[in-house]
C-alpha cells in the first residue's frame, strides 16, 4: 500500500495476552550509592554478547556512512573526546567496557549513537 497508510484504529488489545509483547523484560537495580565503577557490572556481564553484536552492526553502518573516519577518530582521540563528559559517565562507561570486554571507544560510540542517528 502506498502512503498515507490507513489501518483502522485498533481496539481491545490491552493487556496483550500472547506474542512477543508478553516477553518478560528483566529488571536490574542500579544502585547509585555504589561507586560508578560498580553500578553496571552485573548487567554488562549478562548482556555482553548482545552488546557486542549490536556494536558490530553500528560499526558496520558507521563505516558505510563515514568510511571509517569516525571510528578512527574515536579510537585515536578517545581520551581527548571524553574530556568534557561528566566524570561519573566516563567511569560508568569504562566499567561497562571492562565487564563486557568491549573496547571503551565502542561503548562511547554506542552511548552517543541515539544522537548520531539523527544526523
Amino acid at each position, binding site marked *: 500500500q502506498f502512503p498515507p497508510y490507513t489501518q483502522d*484504529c485498533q481496539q481491545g488489545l490491552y493487556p496483550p495476552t500472547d506474542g512477543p509483547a508478553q516477553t518478560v*523484560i528483566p529488571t*536490574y537495580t*542500579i544502585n547509585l550509592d555504589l561507586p560508578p565503577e560498580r553500578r553496571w557490572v552485573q548487567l554488562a556481564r549478562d548482556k555482553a554478547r548482545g552488546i557486542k553484536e549490536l556494536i558490530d552492526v553500528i560499526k558496520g553502518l558507521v563505516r558505510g556512512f563515514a568510511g571509517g573516519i569516525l571510528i578512527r577518530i574515536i579510537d585515536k582521540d578517545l581520551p581527548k573526546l571524553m574530556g568534557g563528559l561528566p566524570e561519573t559517565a566516563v567511569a560508568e562507561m569504562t566499567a561497562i567496557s571492562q565487564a*563486557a570486554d568491549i573496547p571503551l571507544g565502542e561503548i562511547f560510540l554506542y552511548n552517543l549513537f541515539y544522537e548520531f542517528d*539523527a544526523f
Partner: protein
Amino acid sequence: CTSIIAEDKHGEIFHARNLDFGLLLGWDFKNDTWLLTEKLRPLIFNGEFVRENKTVFKAVNFAGYIGVITGLKPQKYSLTVNERFTLKGSGIAGAIKWILGTRTGNWMGFLTRKVFETVDTFEDAKNILSTKELIGPIYFILGGTKSGEGVTITRSLDRTLDYNNLNVTNGTWFVLETNYDRWKAPLFIDDRRTPATKCMNVIGQGNATFAGLFDVLNTKPVLNKLTAYTTLMHVKSGTMDTYIRYCADPCWPW
C-alpha cells in the same frame, strides 16, 4: 518514535511511547526487518535506580547505554525523548564543535540522566530541558501528576523553539509528538502523526487510559518495523509497563 501524554476526565496524566529506532540503518532482506532494531530488542531492560534503598527513578533502557530516553520519577514526572531531524541547526555542527574541543553543549542522554538524578519537580525539569545547550536537536516530552502537566518541548541546540502544553480548558487533552515539528507537515511517507491523532480522537478523553493508549500505539504505522518497545507510564502511581514489540506483516518499515 511516537510519544503521547493524555489527561483523562479526572485530571489523571498518562504518558506512553513507542520507541522506534534504526531507520535506514541496514535492512535485512531475508527477514524483512531492520538489523539494528532486531539487535536492540534483546538488550531491553527495566532499570530501577535506587539510592539509600529508595527508588529515585525508573527507566527503560538498552544494556550498555547509561543515558535515559524513557523514564519516570515516581510522583514527580515522566520523560521520553524523540529524535528530531533538521538540516538547519543540525547536530552535525554541535558534534564538530565537540570534536574540536568546544564542550559547552550537553549530550542528551547524559543530560536526561542528570535530570532524573537531581531534579525533583516537573517545572524544574521543564526549565532545565528547555534551556541547557545541546549537541543535537531533540524533542523532550515531559509529563507530570497534575492537570495540565504535560508538554512537548521542541529543542534546537541553543534554545526552545516551541512548547505544546496540555490544556483541557482549551480542549487540548492530549499532546502527541512523532519526529516532526508540529507546525510543519510530516514527511508524507512517514506520517504517524495523522493516524495517531485520529485514533486518540476515536478513543476519546474518557478512554485516556493504559488500554486506550496501548491501542493507539498498536495501530500501524504508529506501530511499525522500527518499533522496539511500547511503554506506558502513570507518574502518580509510579507505574511503568513496557512491552517488547514486533510488527507482524503486513507492516510498514517505518
